[in-house]
């Protein structure tokens, strides 16, 4: 399987989806029981890592490892955005995916949720300007990796991750307010 990940094939993402689904389901259930989400998400990162260890340690170079994390993060992103879309559709009677601005604002005022659909689009836009920043957001926000883990996953320094993360957050925040 890892060979495929390192081969960078599109289907690797699909292969990973069921695994990620089930893990997310467990996490979400814990989240609903008010456990600290941060903790559970670290578990995910651990799982990915352990899984890597399990496969064939000797032959895993950092590129394929990076690739694995990237793919996992993309998978999570895709699933979470899909859930958000499905939830929207339910609310909107299956018509339009996008909320009208006013409604989005009202919702935001209540409990400041993040509009994952809009974020997803903004993140695509960010990726065209700065691929690395977008990857950092995927790893940090969508798969819950810490700064250190993100740095390791992307094979860049922790400081770079911290810089990318804070700028990407601001950029995305502004983009969503537009």
């Amino acid at each position, binding site marked *: *399987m890892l060979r495929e990940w390192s081969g960078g094939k599109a*289907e690797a993402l699909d292969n990973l989806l069921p695994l990620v689904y089930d893990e997310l389901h467990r996490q979400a259930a814990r989240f609903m029981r008010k456990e600290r989400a941060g903790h559970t998400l670290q578990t995910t990162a651990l799982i990915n890592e352990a899984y890597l260890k399990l496969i064939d340690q000797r032959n895993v170079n950092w590129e394929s490892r990076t690739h694995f994390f990237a793919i996992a993060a993309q998978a999570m992103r895709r699933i979470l955005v899909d859930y958000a879309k499905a939830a929207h559709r339910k609310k909107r009677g*299956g018509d339009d995916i996008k909320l009208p601005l006013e409604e989005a604002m009202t919702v935001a005022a209540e409990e400041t949720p993040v509009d994952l659909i809009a974020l997803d689009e903004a993140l695509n836009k960010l990726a065209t300007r700065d691929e690395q920043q977008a990857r950092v957001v995927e790893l940090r926000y969508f798969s819950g990796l810490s700064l250190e883990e993100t740095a390791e996953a992307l094979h860049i320094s922790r400081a770079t991750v911290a810089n990318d993360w804070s700028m990407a957050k601001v950029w995305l925040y502004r983009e969503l307010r537009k």
Partner: protein
Amino acid sequence: MASYQWQKVKNLFNAALERPRDERLRFLDENWDGDEAVRREVESLLANSEDAAVFLEQPAVGEVAEAIAGNNEKLRVHQNVSHYKILQLLGAGGMGEVYLAEDTKLERKVALKILPAAFAQDAERMRRFVQEAKAVSALNHPNILTIYETGETDNTNYIASEYVEGETLGERLRGEPMNLKAALDVSAQVASALQAAHGTGIVHRDIKPDNVMIRPDGFVKLLDFGIAKLTEKKTELIDAEAATAIKAAGTIPGMIIGTANYMSPEQASGKAVDERSDVFSFGLVLYEMLTGKKAFEGASAMETIGLILHKEPIPLNRHKPDVPPEIERIVNKTLKKDCEERYQTAKDLLIDLKDARQELEFQNKLERSNSASFSEPDATQIINHAETKAAHTTSSAEYIVTEIKSNKLGFIALSVLLLAAIGFGLWFFSNRNSTNANQIKSLAILPLKSLDASENYLGLGIADSVIRRVSQTGEVTVRPTSAVRRYLNEETDALTAAQQLNADAVLEGSVQRGGDRLRVSVNLLRTRDGKSLWSDKFDMPMTDIFVIQDTVAQQVASRLQLQLDPSQQARLTKRYTSNPVAYEFYVKGVYSFDQRVSATKSQVEATIDFFKQAVEADPNFALAHAQLAYAYALKAVFVEPTEPVWAERAKEEINRAEMLDPQLAETHLARSMLLFSASEGYQGEAAVREVLLAQQLNPNVGYGELGYLYIHLGLEDLAARELQRASEIDPTSEYVKQMTLTMYDMGGKYDEYAAHREFYHDDYMEAWYFMSKGRLDEAQKAIEEWSAKSPNKMDLPSKKALLFALKGDFRAAEAMIPVVLSRHPVKDPLYHHAAYDIACIYALEGKSVEAVKWLREANATGFQPYPLFTRDAYLNRVRQTPEFVQFMNEMKLQYENYEREFK
């Protein structure tokens, strides 16, 4: 914003952010290079930086946790989903929520499984969801949950199934062991369910206590084939669009799904899984039933996986010293890391479980009737003696012996037990041996001889329907109608026919029509000794012909002692029409129909005509629609490939047949044929999947078709395997012989080709063979002989052209190319062979660009044997050119995809 500007923004923003808020603007002033756009952007970002501080700091999962967790019970209770009224949430898991609901139409309680809404956007999940429903409902096994319906409403996908009251095995266990008898009862029922599922190619993949439901009366139901997808390569195809989607997504090797605790090592390491993976998971469940402990339990899922992969579980008897060794042996055998060492089938496992259960009952009786005691040394002596004697009875005897040791039973009882043990062993083995020797594994059902010459088709019709019924059970290999058809007009005695067909048993008979009455007599013979296993006579009104067919099929099954489960039983007596007129036309259609390799245009047309009349007489006659679809497909692909109307007709009939009865193998075979044709763009993978589906419905069909497809995809091993199987099913098949030759031809395996050709036909060799050997004069001679004998032979021009090229006369060779192409329009099924020959001609000439162009053309039209491309000497001259190398790289990827999907 240009990327250099973006870089400047990044640098400035990050540097400014490190400074206290009130110093940032000054810092900007000092370090800004005058680029207005950069300045504006940095200021704008800085202005938002405070507000954005907490933004995205909580992970995304929280935003949709509620939706993911499926915690929307309140939303659903009392709601209606289609015509189901939700009553109560029964459970929720990664694959969806299950509700108790009321079917308001049929007024019964059902279990309604709702798929998470997000899954609907995931085509792969959806596909699997539909597959689950189809596959499971086809089983109809008493220990498998019955599916009533699947559907979609308001973006919600659901499965309605039988509602089982009771508790799950997980709830029953709660960390406590069950008693031995109860554990064996439950496990035998689960194994029986698995045996049935495996028989149709379905692997459960998620055997765990939570998926085993125990009813209050002790009846067990295996639930949730939610992640059971048809075994890897048997991926379902829904339509051309989905096929493309699947193609785009590539193959999906064994992905990690399921609960970690009950994974098999192959599952845990992401490898492809088969039936034996279920055997392992089953073993883990049995272990837990016996001990109350999970065999593998780590602190985390990953640790558990590590244990599954590398550690042995704590021996059963350490948890439970009184567990019989036989049971321990069974559990150990299910839990072998190497699937080759496990029980290979659930059937074998079930046999051992049942034996163990029987033995336990037997022993309990004995123990109850015993109270005497005896001195230990004597007992040991006898035990030793007995052990040598009963060594071959394996652990059954050991088990009893151990019991004796621990219980210090009396001498008399001991002797009784030892005798019983030895006797059991003997019975056990003789029984097994005798079943092996007498077992009838293959059967030929000959056309019933008509005693009045004009009614020939009736005898074939009865044979055909009995063949269909018995072969669909999958319990015995039945020679297909095409193999026995020739005996209709031959005066061959039944046993000789059986030997020719290499069948263990043969059914012969006669049919006579007198007015509107029908007299049928049948006789089932064992080939080995000619013994009659059953014979019978029927005298019934013509309208009861279906009753006769049912009876004959059932009798044959029972005389051959086929163990049929309810779904096989249902297939055995399935009726496709009750309209005698429609049936008569149908049988005439079957009669006029021959194997596709030798079918002539007029045969195909006559066949179409009969089946058309059959469906006109009974528009709901699904089987006739399916056969008509097949005949149309044949016409579309092989008879008139340039006429698009036939493919359209075939599709119409496929749809109609499928709508009326989704369980017909013929429909899938027809679709497969269409898919691998010019009109559908030679969708090889999709075509293979269709045949695999057909085989699930009727395990006796499709091997020749698979061989044909695998040959074209270059999957040589698989092609050889399938053709081998095809020739076992029908040793007389010309089609299979033809395909075997084609396999060697398209593999560039000249010597094997020659050997088989001689073996099959005993005639002169093809020019192609001589050319491959460089014997050009003989090739020339062979071509001349052909030209004289059959100047219209399709591939004559291309072989002539190839010969010119081999002789170095490239001008003459190239001049032949237009002739070759005029023989084979693009839609012709042989076009890709012509294209390949043309490629070879150019390659011999050293014209690499043209050669690759034609190779691509051949590949695009279904000629994709990568191994041939790698070894064909005709291509050697251009092998090093960049375009050829590029082409081969692409072919290699394509080939590896095929391998991954189907191997």
